[in-house]
């Protein structure tokens, strides 16, 4: 065998290798089907915020306020002030602004009222998430009020800006 023949054989072998290797490689390259996805992160709705307030007589928040009874007082020609401490607890998942109103002024002018958070009025007080605060509900009975039984309704609500 002369050298020219070897050359032809070597070149042919090289050519075959050049073609065969990519063909074989491609044969072994497996692909999954194509899954079109718009994004790699799936967004879900966040949990719905909860808003709830609690009213208690004690700082341990164990005795819920159902009614606010000032009991019986004797007619007097001097003004009388009565007050109750009520703990308000934020039992929701967001900071809440507290508001209140009352039907007392429509019931009588002989008794006036206020509801405070320390020295500040309770209205517009912001109560943070999972916090509670002592508040004072206070009434003043004017001198020589009409005797009798007085009933009124206190309404409290919270607002949360989301």
């Amino acid at each position, binding site marked *: 065998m002369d050298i020219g023949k070897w050359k032809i054989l070597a070149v042919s072998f090289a050519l075959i290798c050049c073609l065969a290797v990519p063909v074989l490689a491609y044969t072994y390259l497996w692909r999954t089907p194509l899954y079109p996805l718009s994004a790699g992160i799936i967004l879900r709705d966040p949990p719905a915020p909860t808003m709830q307030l609690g*009213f208690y007589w004690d700082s341990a928040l164990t005795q819920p306020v159902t009614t606010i009874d000032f009991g019986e007082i004797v007619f007097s020609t001097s003004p009388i002030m009565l007050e109750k401490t009520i703990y308000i607890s934020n039992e929701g998942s967001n900071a809440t602004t507290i508001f209140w109103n009352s039907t007392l002024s429509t019931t009588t002018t002989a008794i006036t009222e206020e509801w405070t958070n320390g020295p500040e009025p309770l209205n517009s007080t912001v109560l943070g998430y999972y916090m509670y605060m002592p508040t004072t509900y206070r009434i003043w009975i004017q001198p*020589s009020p009409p005797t*009798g*039984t007085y*009933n009124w*309704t206190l309404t409290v609500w919270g607002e949360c800006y989301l």
Partner: protein
Amino acid sequence: MLSLLLVLIIVGSSLSFVVAYQYVWRTELYKREAGLRIRPLIEGDINADGKVDQFDLRILATAYGSTPTEPNWNLSADINGNKIVEVQDLFVIGTNYGKP
């Protein structure tokens, strides 16, 4: 041109208020009943003049049978606080009549 701008500003601000309002969440309304009774020194002394007499009886007679929604209602005449001026209130006056 100026009026158009003004209209746009008004509409825009109204819209933003409406949108902002959508994001205010309110809790339920928590209603609590409050009350007290102011009683006279002597039960039945409706006018609180220190004695149970004909004047108290007259006030009760005027309010007799009334409830809080009626024009002749008198809170003081409802001695037992059951929201109606009735015979039980009259009994209280009768029991203490003449007491100073």
